[in-house]
């Protein structure tokens, strides 16, 4: 026995926008889908850029992880991680208006009556809860994280990672199940043809009986192309006010709302800091004249002062630090090759390097460099930046800088490097 729908949004006459319909949702979905794919892929690349396969690096328990390893050769340009992560963050932000429009276009379905029509409908609605909850959770936590608004108790990395799998699994199901609807809409109305209609010619979609098409449409106040233009305008605005923190240059002045859009002075140490010396709990004594770098491999340990390190061959490279939060900075770094430190203590061939900070505690006080990163010509234990000693906030007396290495693995205030057979 079918009961009448409750009043309000459950009534089919409640939703009146003449724009809603399978074609509009198909167009929004066709734009949103590829964006989600790219954001997911660059997120996975970032997950793997931390080299979770090396003992000590993983935030996600590798025994339970299900991600394929996608890693670029260390020989690739040093800005490769800054690029992929810049895309992850920037495209994520730019996609938000599209996501909101897509959700707006299908909102009547949330209030369908009867609430469950069949077994297929029940299982689909469950997957839609994971899809919508997952999408909004991923976007919300990502957006808050890049602004340091930790309004939760859970571990962001763990929640954002596993939340992404929940979202992505439901997303793939949605693509498979809805593809026929998209194809049908495009066949019936053309891919772009409804965009020719101006406001006067904007009519409800002729797909009678589709739950998205209003039974009692209101007069249109905007055309479909106007709606897409509005979404595009919002996305373009977000792009303009955020992109500068990733690409720098003159665009940085336009990065009016980017979390790391600040324009610094022109001094050699005037660029973005992540974690200041004060917040890392580094006391002046820890990085004062008594500071020593301990380098060891097998049974051999060498202790080096900053002067002794400066007496070794110095190399200079222009290298990019890319942060997981999407901003990046490129500077001229000078210091000792990690490979030279390995040779100094007779490290075994194809060794990995465990790098530890003098920082007493903290999430990223230690990181493990892969064999490729250890042997790469451009991987440095930097002592200088842009011709002057590192400032304390940038890791004085010595910090790691290596191509394609996520920012927090470019360990600052290094106290110990241990080469281990991989």
């Amino acid at each position, binding site marked *: 026995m079918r009961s009448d729908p409750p009043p309000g949004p459950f009534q089919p006459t409640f939703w009146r926008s003449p724009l809603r319909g399978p074609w509009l949702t198909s167009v929004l979905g066709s734009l949103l889908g590829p964006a989600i794919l790219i954001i997911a892929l660059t997120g996975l690349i970032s997950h793997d850029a931390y080299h979770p396969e090396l003992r000590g690096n993983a935030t996600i328990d590798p025994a*339970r992880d*299900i991600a394929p390893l996608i890693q670029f050769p260390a020989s690739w340009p040093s800005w490769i991680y800054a690029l992929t992560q810049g895309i992850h963050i920037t495209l994520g*932000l730019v996609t*938000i208006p599209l996501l909101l429009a897509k*959700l*707006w276009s299908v*909102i009547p379905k949330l209030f369908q009556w009867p609430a469950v*029509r*069949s*077994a*297929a409908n029940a*299982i*689909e609605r*469950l*997957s839609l809860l*994971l899809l*919508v*909850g*997952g999408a*909004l*959770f991923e976007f*919300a*936590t990502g957006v*808050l994280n890049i*602004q*340091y*608004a*930790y309004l*939760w*108790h*859970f*571990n962001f990395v*763990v*929640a954002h990672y596993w939340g992404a*799998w*929940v979202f992505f*699994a*439901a997303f*793939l*199901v949605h693509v*498979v*199940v809805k593809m026929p609807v998209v194809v049908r809409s495009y066949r019936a109305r053309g891919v772009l043809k409804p965009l020719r209609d101006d*406001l006067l010619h904007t009519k409800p979609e002729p797909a009678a009986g589709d739950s998205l098409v209003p039974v009692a449409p209101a007069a249109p*106040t*905007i055309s479909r192309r*106007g709606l897409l233009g*509005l979404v595009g305008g919002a996305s373009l*605005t*977000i792009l303009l*006010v955020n992109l500068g923190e990733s690409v720098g240059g003159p665009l940085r002045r336009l990065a*009016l*709302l980017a*979390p*790391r859009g600040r324009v610094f002075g022109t001094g050699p140490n005037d660029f*973005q*800091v*992540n974690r*200041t010396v*004060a917040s890392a709990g580094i006391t002046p004594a820890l990085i004062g004249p008594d500071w020593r770098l301990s380098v060891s491999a097998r049974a051999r340990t060498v202790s080096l002062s900053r002067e002794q390190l400066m007496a070794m061959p110095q190399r200079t490279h222009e290298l990019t630090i890319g942060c997981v939060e999407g901003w990046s900075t490129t500077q001229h770094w000078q210091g000792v090759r990690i490979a030279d430190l390995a040779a100094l203590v007779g490290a075994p061939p194809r060794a990995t390097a465990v790098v530890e900070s003098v920082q007493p505690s903290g999430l990223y006080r230690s990181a493990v460099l892969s064999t490729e990163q250890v042997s790469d010509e451009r991987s440095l234990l930097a002592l200088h930046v842009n011709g002057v000693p590192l400032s304390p*906030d940038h890791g004085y007396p010595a910090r790691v800088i290596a191509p394609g290495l996520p920012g927090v693995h470019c360990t600052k205030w290094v106290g110990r490097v241990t080469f281990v057979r991989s």
Partner: protein
Amino acid sequence: MSHFKDRYGASPLHLIAHVIGLAIAAYALVQLLGEKHWVNFLGWFLAAALLHDLVLLPAYSAADRIAGAVMRRLHVRMPGGDLRVPIVNHVRAPALISGVLLLIYFPLILGPGDAAYFSATGHHPSGYLRNWLLITVVLFGGSAIIYMARVRAARSRRSSPPT
């Protein structure tokens, strides 16, 4: 085949896709539910969907409807107002873009993340409220200029004799 569809409500592919997808999602959820703050996670996950569907969307829809009604009345009274150039989207567009920017950047604009921001970057987030207001003024100003240009174009079309 049609027997299956009658009982299940969709094709077998629909069921297969859902079983595989839901299995992966369930595995990921189990990993999260083993974490220390799993209740907090679950709350965020559900709140994200509920806040959007039952608060944000109804709120902006209502605001749009009210603003639209006000503007329709205003438009008729406005001297020289031209009904062929509806003003509604010239308010809607800047308001919506400004609103989305606030939705995304509210922690920096309104400041709840200040302490963590300072500890990471070494300076306080400043100027975000001013920048957001500036962008909002530019958006509304730009939209108003376009509107006036459209009204002027419509008027000159009307006053010029038909050719």
